[in-house]
Structures are given as structure tokens and as C-alpha cells.
């Protein structure tokens, strides 16, 4: 697709036009086209990973299983949010997010197959972090309750910030194929976090009392996030001394978005 002329520099647009532009399918396509072209299932065909030793392979499969639960939560959350989004632009953005999350799930399942796992869906059920299943249930409850601010906060701030921090950390120490897959996902997460920050920032300016409700959601979800970090980092093999840093990075990421 080609970019409409006005898309060349969206930050020069008036606020209303900027909002319309960055939530559009056209903008989504411009954003993903560079890093998805020539990367079927999230990595370049020529990228190769050295054969992992059996214990490392098992650990990686377990971690990828947990990631799949996070991405399934994100897919179901984003698609559920389309129904309660307050305007056309947000509905269209969330549709692009739903396909991003579906792609993440697909590339992670595909990576598990590349690692020799014949039935990755069954492995996900068997291996994934129970803490993440709890997180998923809670997120989908918020979406089902049609509480737009709380659900967007849980989905596009908490869950996306959690995935952003974990995937970025894991990518640094992953094999080349897994690294490319994770880096592609992280680029999408940036866009999703941007939407959450923008949407909630505007809403909280109009309704500051909602901040207390979001703080309550955060108090409930943070322990699940931090516990899932601990489980994931142990599997990835991150030394115990380095693990608290990830939690701090997550808390800092959420704080940077203005949610302390």
C-alpha cells in the first residue's frame, strides 16, 4: 500500500487528524510493512539457530508456552475491546491490534514447531504459567464488564508493558531465530502501548476520578505480573540476582506512562 500524502509526517497534523491517522488501517500497514516483509512466521528464512541442548530446548518450549497464553489473552482482549470502543477510530485500531496479537500467537506456535514440538497447543496447556492463566481470566473479566478505561489499562498498559519488558530482555539472550521473532513482536507492542497511553491520557484528563479505579486494577494485577516474571526468568536461565531488575523495568515502564 502507499501512504496517503498527509501521512508522511503525522506529528505535523492537527490533533484530530493525527488521531484519525495513527488509528487507521493505512497507518498500521505503513508501520508493519518494513519489518514483516520477507519474514514469514516472524524471521528471515536464512536465519538459523544452532541446535539447542535438550535442557535448553525444554526451557525455551516452556517459556514460549507462557508467551502463547499472554498472546491469547491479548488477542481475546483486543477483539473484545472492539465491541466497547467508544469510537470508529479506536475500533479500527483495536482491529489492527487483534491481528497483531493473532500473528504473535501464530509465530510463537510456529517457533515451537520449529523446535520439534508436534502439537504446540497441547504443550501450551501443559507447560504455561498458571499465573498467566489467572491474569488472562482477570483481563477478560474486565473486558466483559465493559469497563473501557480499566480494560484498556489492563490490556494496553499492564499486559503490553509486561510483554514488552520480557520479550526485550529475552531477545538479548535468545538464539538468532527466537530473537528475530521476539524483536518483531516488540515493535508491535510499542504501537499498542502508545495507543493505551494516548487513550487513557486523554480520558484521565477528562475524568481524573477514574485514576483511583485504575490504581485498584493495578494493585490486583501487579503481583501476577511480577510472579510471572519470576517464573519466566527462571526458565530462561536469568541469574536470580538479575531478576528483580526486570520487575523494576516493568514498574518504571508503567510509571513512565503516568500510572504510579
Amino acid at each position, binding site marked *: *500500500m502507499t501512504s496517503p500524502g498527509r501521512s508522511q509526517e503525522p506529528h505535523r497534523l492537527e490533533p484530530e487528524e493525527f488521531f484519525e491517522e495513527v488509528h487507521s488501517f493505512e497507518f498500521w500497514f505503513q508501520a508493519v510493512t518494513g519489518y514483516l516483509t520477507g519474514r514469514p512466521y516472524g524471521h528471515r528464512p536464512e536465519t538459523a539457530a544452532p541446535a539447542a541442548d535438550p535442557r535448553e530446548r525444554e526451557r525455551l518450549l516452556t517459556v514460549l508456552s507462557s508467551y502463547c497464553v499472554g498472546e491469547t489473552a491479548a488477542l481475546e482482549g483486543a477483539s473484545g475491546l*472492539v465491541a466497547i470502543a467508544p469510537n470508529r477510530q479506536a*475500533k*479500527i485500531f483495536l482491529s489492527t491490534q*487483534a*491481528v497483531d496479537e493473532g500473528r504473535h*500467537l*501464530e509465530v510463537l*506456535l510456529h517457533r515451537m514447531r520449529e523446535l520439534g514440538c508436534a502439537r504446540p497447543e497441547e504443550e501450551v496447556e501443559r507447560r504455561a504459567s498458571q499465573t498467566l492463566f489467572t491474569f488472562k481470566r482477570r483481563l477478560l473479566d474486565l473486558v466483559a464488564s465493559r469497563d473501557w478505561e480499566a480494560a484498556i489499562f489492563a490490556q494496553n498498559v499492564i499486559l503490553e508493558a509486561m510483554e514488552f519488558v520480557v520479550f526485550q530482555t529475552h531477545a538479548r539472550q535468545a538464539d538468532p531465530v527466537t530473537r528475530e521473532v521476539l524483536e518483531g513482536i516488540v515493535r508491535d507492542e510499542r504501537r499498542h502501548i502508545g495507543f493505551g497511553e494516548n487513550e487513557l491520557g486523554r480520558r484521565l484528563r477528562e475524568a481524573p476520578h477514574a485514576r483511583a479505579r485504575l490504581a485498584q486494577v493495578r494493585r490486583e494485577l501487579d503481583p501476577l505480573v511480577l510472579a510471572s516474571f519470576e517464573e519466566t526468568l527462571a526458565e530462561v536461565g536469568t541469574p536470580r540476582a538479575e531478576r528483580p531488575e526486570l520487575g523494576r523495568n516493568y514498574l518504571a515502564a508503567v510509571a513512565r506512562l503516568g500510572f504510579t
Partner: protein
Amino acid sequence: MADFLGAYSIQSWLESAPQGYLVGTEYGHAPGEREPEFVLENPVLRAAAIRTTVQLVVGERCALAASSGLINCAPDEASKRFLATQTIDEARHVEIFTQRLFDLGVRKSELEDLLKSQANPHLVRFAQVLLDKVERKDFVAGVVGQNVILEGMAFHVFELMHAGNQSLNPKFAHTLSGTIADERRHVGFGENRIGSLIREHPDKKPEVQRMQRDMSGHMLATFAASFRDGLAEREEVERVQRAAAARGVAEKPATWQGADLQALEPAELEKLLGETVLREFKVRLGRIGLEYQTPPGP
């Protein structure tokens, strides 16, 4: 099932749509293409184009709500991922048809009021029947309603509009051609995925068939109202065609389903469209083990 669903993966979608037939397009058409002057400058034709496009936006908003709502009640992950691609397809359709309204001179601030005032009430009821099923998380009925009935209808309506606009309005015809390619994929999924689910849940048949009957009734009423509303437009189009012919500008004949569209009266066109869609419904419903139910007459 896994093999068939492999063909509906996000990777396949990326390669066929964004990296395939949408490459080099802008809001579904070639960059720089505009609505023709004879539409923009003629109040009757402009109003008709707006009224028609409103129905497309209403239909696509329904499809977006239905496909995104079905993700959470899909029984397997591969279906969820396919429905994610359908969700973004429908969002794209909402976007490109909404953009057409803006191209036709509708102000952004007028959009929602325009949709409310000009949406065909039968089409709104058609959408409600489907969205009730989605709201109740009824996956089988939802997919039949969305991917067989709604998409089957949209496919033929888009094809008819495409045939009628190829020569008169290439921009709109190009916009439609991408949506036709999308709808073909969606219809294929519905037919392939639901057959096995209907076999597993034969008790669902009567309810799903009732939904099909109700949706078909509202669809036919929508067609009747649209063709009735289009009489003045028809006269204006014929006037434009005569003027073009007088200038020696030959127009390619528009044919669809073997019929010369310019030679048909609106009532004949309505009959052709209705019969074509219903014939297709019967075939597709039969393939998934359902029997077509005739809606009550008007």
C-alpha cells in the same frame, strides 16, 4: 481441520492481502484516483452515492462487530487467528467506505448523524439478528450468519456494484475489487469450518435455519427499498450515458451474471440480485448440512 485452517493463517493472509492485492493501493484504490466529476457535481448522483455508501458502512460495521465478537467464542486457536484477519479486513472495509463518504463531501462531524438517518431500517434489523447471536456467544449461528449469510450477500452486492462501476467510476470499482477478494476468503472459511460443527451439534440446525430465514427476509427487504430509492439515480445515469455517447465516448457494456445491466429495469435488477444471492445461499447451506428456509413474503 488443522490442514484446512492452515490455509487461513495470518501468514497466508499477510501474503495474499497486504503483501498481495492491496500493494500499491490507497484506501483500496490506486493513489490519485478520484470520484468522477459527474458524481460530485450532480446532486442526484452524489446523494445516491452517499446513500449507497452509508449502507456499505452499516453492513461493514456489523461485520466488524460480529467477527471481533466471535473470536472469544471460537472453539480453537486457529479459528481465533483466522477471525483476527477477518476482523482487520472488516475494519479496513469500514475505513475505506467511510473514506468514500468523506471523498463525496460528507463532513467528519456529520458522519454519525448521516449513518443514523440514512441507514436502511431492514439492514439494521438484519444486523441485529446476527449481533444477537454473537452477543450470546453462539459460535455456530454467528459464523453461519456472518460468513455465509452476510458475507454471501456482500460478495454478490459488491460484484454487482463492481460490474456497474468499472467503466463509470473506476475509483469505486477498484475499492470494491479488494473487498470482493476479502469476502471470498471469509465465505470459504465459514463453509469449511461450520460443516463439521453442524455435524457435531445437529440440535443447532432449527435455530440456525430460523436465523437464516430472518436474515434473508431482511436482506430482500433491503434490496427492494434500495432499488425503489434508486429510480431517480437511474434516470440521471442514463442521461450521463447519453451525453457521453453524444460526445463519442463509448462506454464498455456492464454485464453481471450474464445480464446487460443497462438493459435491465430496477425491478429486474433487484430480482436478479435476490435470486443470485439466494441460489448461492442454498448451495452453501446445503454443503454445511443446513436446509434453506424461505422467508415469509412482504
